[in-house]
């Protein structure tokens, strides 16, 4: 350690050499564990025909755009099979960048999620926040959060909705921690399929109306649209559609038994519109790709490490050459060749041990700081 600069450079070189493979291994392991756990906790998933990876990742980790390929009718169909608990999920909206999940009360039951504060959403316009989401947004129960406008330039798009925070969930160490849960109906209001406005009737001023007959009154755009659902206006909210046709993204199924699950899956295996998936298997396939990629990186790292070690060997040999006189003096003074070897080996070992320790520490720090990447997928 006397030659501080030289030692520091060697230490830095070795640490960087070991850091990359360590960091990759730790991050891949953390990613695999996280994604696999989520897959295992979701027995079956039903969604529209298409890319099974997209469907699985979007449904389990609340990503992707709003989809209208499935509807409540499909959910009803599956529920009537009476083979377990079916949970509809409506995705594609965000509030302050956090995903909004429209679902039913059953979601919390089957996922074993309980509120830490307040309640789960029971009424239209109510929201319960995941633990990390609540921390990040620093909101309290009773506060409101505004949903994000998808396209600012779309004049025909629905207004953002003010969601009332009614609860905060306990930490689950899953994607649920970074989500906002509402009722399915609330997501329909967000999408514009439902809305609320001031009452229109015979007494409504004419400048707010497009047309008015005895049988039908049509309001114009000046009618006040409500952007918040509360006790005073909840009755003004309605849907201009058959509820059965209102869309959902996917359906998470929790079969009563393995047999029920197998029957459900078999029944929809060749369905034209709906595909059944076992998220665990789909994620397994995805991980195989990740692991194959990791192996490719590993072989690249192996070559880099070899190159670094060769350079280090050259530096060590050069160092030994420059310390030849020192070695000779030690030998003349009665030091054995073995002890001299031990002295130099110890110096190299200390360097290697510290570089491995620093590399591991750095890898864990990066994994911790880079947990945003994992949180996106939780």
């Amino acid at each position: 350690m006397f030659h501080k600069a030289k030692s520091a450079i060697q230490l830095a070189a070795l640490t960087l050499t070991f850091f990359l493979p360590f960091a990759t291994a730790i991050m891949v392991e953390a990613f695999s564990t996280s994604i696999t756990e989520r897959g295992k906790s979701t027995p079956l998933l039903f969604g529209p025909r298409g890319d099974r990876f997209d469907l699985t990742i979007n449904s389990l980790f609340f990503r992707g755009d709003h989809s209208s390929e499935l509807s409540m009718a499909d959910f009803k169909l599956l529920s009537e099979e009476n083979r377990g608990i079916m949970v509809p999920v409506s995705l594609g909206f965000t509030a302050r960048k956090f995903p909004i999940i429209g679902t039913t009360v059953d979601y919390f039951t089957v996922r074993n999620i309980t509120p830490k504060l307040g309640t789960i959403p029971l009424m239209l316009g109510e929201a319960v926040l995941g633990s990390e989401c609540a921390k990040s947004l620093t909101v309290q129960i009773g506060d409101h959060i505004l949903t994000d406008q998808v396209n600012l330039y779309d004049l025909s798009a629905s207004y953002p909705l003010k969601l009332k925070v009614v609860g905060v969930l306990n930490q689950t160490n899953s994607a649920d921690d970074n989500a906002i849960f509402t009722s399915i109906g609330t997501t329909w209001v967000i999408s514009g399929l439902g809305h609320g406005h001031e009452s229109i009737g015979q007494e409504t001023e004419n400048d707010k109306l497009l047309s008015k007959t005895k049988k039908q009154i049509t309001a114009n755009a000046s009618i006040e649209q409500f952007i918040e659902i509360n006790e005073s206006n909840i009755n003004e909210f309605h849907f201009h559609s058959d509820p059965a046709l209102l869309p959902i993204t996917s359906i998470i199924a929790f079969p009563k038994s393995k047999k029920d699950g197998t029957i459900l899956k078999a029944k929809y295996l060749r369905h034209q519109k709906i595909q059944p998936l076992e998220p665990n298997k789909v994620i397994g396939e995805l991980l195989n790709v990740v692991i194959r990629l990791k192996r490719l990186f590993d072989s690249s790292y192996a070559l880099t490490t070899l190159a670094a070690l060769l350079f280090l060997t050259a530096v060590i040999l050069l160092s030994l050459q420059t310390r030849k006189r020192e070695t000779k003096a030690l030998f003349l003074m009665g030091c054995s060749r073995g002890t001299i070897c031990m002295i130099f080996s110890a110096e190299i070992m200390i360097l290697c041990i510290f570089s491995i320790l620093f590399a591991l520490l750095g890898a864990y720090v990066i994994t911790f700081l880079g947990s945003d990447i994992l949180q996106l997928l939780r």
Partner: protein
Amino acid sequence: MKESLIQIRNLNFRYPKSNFSLSVPELTINKESKVALIGKSGCGKTTLAHLIAGILNPTEGNILVSGKNLCSLTESERREHRAANVGFIFQEFELLNYLQVKDNLLLPFMINRKMEITNECKDRAHSLAESIGISDKLDQYPEQLSGGERQRLAIARALVTNPSIVIADEPTGNLDNETALTVMQEIIKQSTEKGATLIMITHDDSLLNLFEKTINVGDFSKTY
């Protein structure tokens, strides 16, 4: 009359695959004597010193040091003998810059597993440091010492194990005459105080008058 310390009888030495050889029929060096090994470059001065120190083993013949025949010892035994009984003073001092002065002083104990660093050793090192005037610099590093202080430290290191023999390999080789004389006087003073036999390899004829005996090694060597 001084007692003999080193006795060489019928010594022959040859480096492998070399046309150089050293033949010493008889040589005696007494205890506490000051001996200079002289001769032209390559005549075998360092070789003879290394044979006496037990670093090299003669092809034939005997080297007795304090009655012990070095030629009958294994390499490990000769190394232990050397560590305990021979002190070296090198031309470039060969101080370890990454060790403090106090650790440089104790280096001969540190590098030999069979020699423990006892309180007695530490006291001896401290006493030596005081006698050579560097006792206030024990926590410093060699590069923080002056040239003269480094020389004295090298001398003290050679004497810390209380060796019976001190071998100085051209310690004044790079010095001017005045400094060389000062250094030589210090070496002789310290080795005399410690009762050590001094064997010095030198090219400097001006210093020969400081020595009781001068051996021209060139008389014993041949190049084929």
